[in-house]
């Protein structure tokens, strides 16, 4: 059960009551009239009633008012579901034919399973490696399609520990009905124990740091602002001035979120940062998988201060006011500063 379950059920059953009442009324009158006014002789001619403006206005007006109420209630619930709170803990999901791969920032990776703590808001950032899937936890009343080449998000807060179904709800090919799994909602201390017992390979950001070297990103993205490509410190969450590119029509701004960073890795020509040379960076399309991109994003994210400290991208300036933390060290060849603290 999640924070949405009770309010969803309440809404559902109010609808069922209102609509059921109307449907029962229609059935009642149909049967009543059919019996009461059953034809008595073959040539019977009943009174010819053409219509009644007042009656018709009533049964246009009353449904309209009811419908607007349903619309508003539904919209409220939807917006609550669709707008993840800023303080949610983050989990990353990659769907592929036919499995769910989930990843915790601390580094835990799972297949067709997801462990989460109850009482904490959880935000899933999801993408697909192939076709469209849909992440569906019936008991939580949440569902979101998972698309290739795009991040979609979903959030919830589990309220009761337990084991819950996870389904793929968008038909995705041969083993669609096998693309299922379990959500384990655990007490926070159990969750902490679970995290610790399994963490062997390090967090996503540190995996991302290794990839940063492996793909030789550090050769150009220097941390002193003097490299041929923008300094990535402070990029995440900042507002970037875009000078041009293939997917924009002119100068504009964009918030450097997961989608933006992903797009820049796969299609660097799409949105070129103002003041930087176009076409310098090669595309990594086909060389990097979705999980690696998520690791890289986690690393780039770790290079930024906590939310709120937006820094203009491309400035090359050192991080202002971010306390150096030893947890993650920037690329040795280029690093002149320690990077920002990484906190999930």
């Amino acid at each position: 059960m999640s924070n949405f379950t009770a309010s969803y059920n309440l809404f559902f059953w109010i609808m069922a009551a209102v609509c059921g009442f109307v449907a029962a009324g229609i059935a009642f009158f149909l049967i009543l009239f059919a019996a009461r006014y059953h034809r008595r002789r073959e040539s019977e001619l009943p009174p010819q009633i053409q219509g009644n403006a007042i009656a018709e206005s009533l049964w246009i007006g009353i449904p309209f008012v009811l419908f607007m109420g349903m619309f508003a209630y539904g919209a409220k619930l939807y917006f609550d579901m669709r707008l993840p709170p800023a303080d949610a803990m983050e989990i990353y999901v990659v769907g592929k034919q036919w499995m769910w791969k989930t990843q915790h920032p601390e580094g835990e990776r799972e297949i067709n399973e997801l462990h989460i703590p109850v009482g904490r808001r959880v935000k899933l950032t999801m993408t697909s490696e192939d076709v469209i899937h849909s992440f569906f936890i019936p008991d939580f009343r949440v569902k979101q399609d998972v698309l290739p080449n795009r991040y979609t998000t979903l959030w919830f807060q589990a309220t009761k520990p337990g084991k819950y179904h996870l389904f793929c709800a968008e038909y995705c090919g041969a083993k669609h009905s096998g693309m299922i799994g379990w959500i384990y909602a655990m007490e926070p201390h159990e969750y902490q124990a679970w995290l610790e017992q399994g963490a062997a390979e390090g967090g996503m950001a540190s995996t991302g740091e290794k990839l940063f070297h492996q793909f030789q990103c550090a050769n150009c993205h220097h941390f002193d602002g003097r490299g041929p490509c923008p300094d990535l410190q402070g990029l995440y969450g900042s507002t970037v001035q875009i000078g041009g590119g293939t997917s924009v029509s002119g100068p504009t701004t964009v918030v450097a979120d997961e989608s933006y960073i992903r797009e820049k890795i796969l299609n660097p020509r799409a949105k070129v940062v103002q003041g930087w040379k176009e076409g310098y960076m090669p595309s990594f399309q086909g060389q990097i998988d979705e999980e690696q991109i998520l690791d890289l994003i986690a690393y780039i994210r770790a290079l930024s201060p906590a939310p709120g400290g937006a820094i203009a991208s491309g400035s090359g300036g050192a991080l202002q006011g971010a306390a150096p933390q030893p947890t993650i060290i920037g690329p040795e060849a280029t690093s002149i500063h320690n990077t920002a603290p990484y906190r999930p």
Partner: protein
Amino acid sequence: MIAAPEITERNYLTGKEGVLSWLLTTDHKRIGLLYVASITAFFFIGGLFALLMRLELLTPPSDLVSPETYNKLFSMHGIIMVWFFLIPSIPATLGNFVVPMMIGARDLAFPKLNLASWYLFNLGGIVTLYAILRGGVDTGWTFYTPLSTTYSTTYVIAAAAGIFISGFSSILTGLNFIATIHGMRCPGLTWFRLPLFIWGMYASSLIFVIATPVLAITLLMVAVERIFQVGIFDPALGGDPLLFQHMFWFYSHPAVYIMVLPAMAVVSELVSTFSRRPVFGYKAVAFSSLGIALVGFLVWGHHMFVSGQSIYSALAFSLLSYLVAIPSAIKVFNWTATFYKGSISWDTPMLYAIGFIGLFTIGGITGLFLAALGLDVHVTDTYFVVAHFHYIMVGGAVMAYLGGIHYWWPKISGRMYPEGLAKLAALTVFLGFNLTFFPQFILGYLGMPRRYAAYPPEFQVLHVLSTAGASILGVGYVLPLCYLIWAWRYAPKAPPNPWRATGLEWKTPSPPSVHNFDETPVVNYGAYDYEALKGELGLG
């Protein structure tokens, strides 16, 4: 019943003989019957797929057929039922047969085009059947990308080509009806004297003409991407998968109204005839058809509330979906009011009409759940949606089709049908339908996703109920097939107007002569004007 005058002249069935006289006919009545033959075949093919699916779903694992086969079954069931049964069902059969007679015309505006439509329809059907026989298609009837364009290894292009071809039959039929209704009404038959059946046909013809080309283009783009690897929908090629959904539903939501507007059109006729009263609030019902057709073009995004489209466009689509529900509500209330103080007969067509109103109401009401943004999230892509659209399309459109077939059967065949057996079949269909699909609402609420070959065991009881219902429903559909074939030769002869109905089609002999009317009728009374016609109909 009015005593039948002895029919001596040759009618449309006996006018010319031989197979060729049927295959080359331009008579709208014969073409209507050709369509009946075609869609009946497709209905039972699609039904067979449904039966196999229901049998597979008796047990939780996919044991009767493999998941791959199951996926093909629901895909082909959807494709056949939507494009080769439901879309043409009422317009191409009953519409073809009745529209010219209802407006006092000798034929449709373009009789040869009408025959060409039938051939295109069958050509499309044969191409699709070819795809099925070669190994089938597994994309679902919705062809979502990039599954259909890049990942599926089945006969996607052949299936899409069949739908593409049959789409031209829809467009031509729509054009033909629009031209006919505009230009061929007999003297005195003004727009507001038209039977509501004509209004419904007109509204659905508009959708045929406006929406079908979008489907054709969309399917063409799927084929182009699949064959030439041009990036349109697959992001790996630079395309956008949501673009496909927008284009597909821009056609396919209005297509739902192509299925249900003609059904409503039939029900308006049935309700008036069998309560012997004008339909309550004629103008409201007439305009509600046009309202549904027009607003219906603006609601496609309600299929995409969890697809990743902007939450603000979802907001607009939700609001518009509630607006399009209002004309449907008007119809239901006005039909119910027509019963009030009427002279209600319980003949089989009326049973189907009552069944339609009840089931369509449930289908419509559950549509309100799905239009509510927050409620949609949990139940979309579950059996709740499956149950919802079957209540509209099977509980609605098929019930109305059967009601219409029985209603006009005396006109079509010149003979009655066995009333007792027909009532039994209507009851069987109604009960079987509810047992099949009502449990699916519960399944959906409990979270059972659609298009699952295997499912967790806790859903089994409801699936068993549903399969039991489906077998009853199957019997209910085979019964009319049997007794109507019997009735074609052996049932008692029908008088011209067995129901004492007001439509012009009942002024023709049963079965009608080749040119419908010996003299062009002149109309100086409104639709369903029993008062004006009471002498002629022997009422009072």
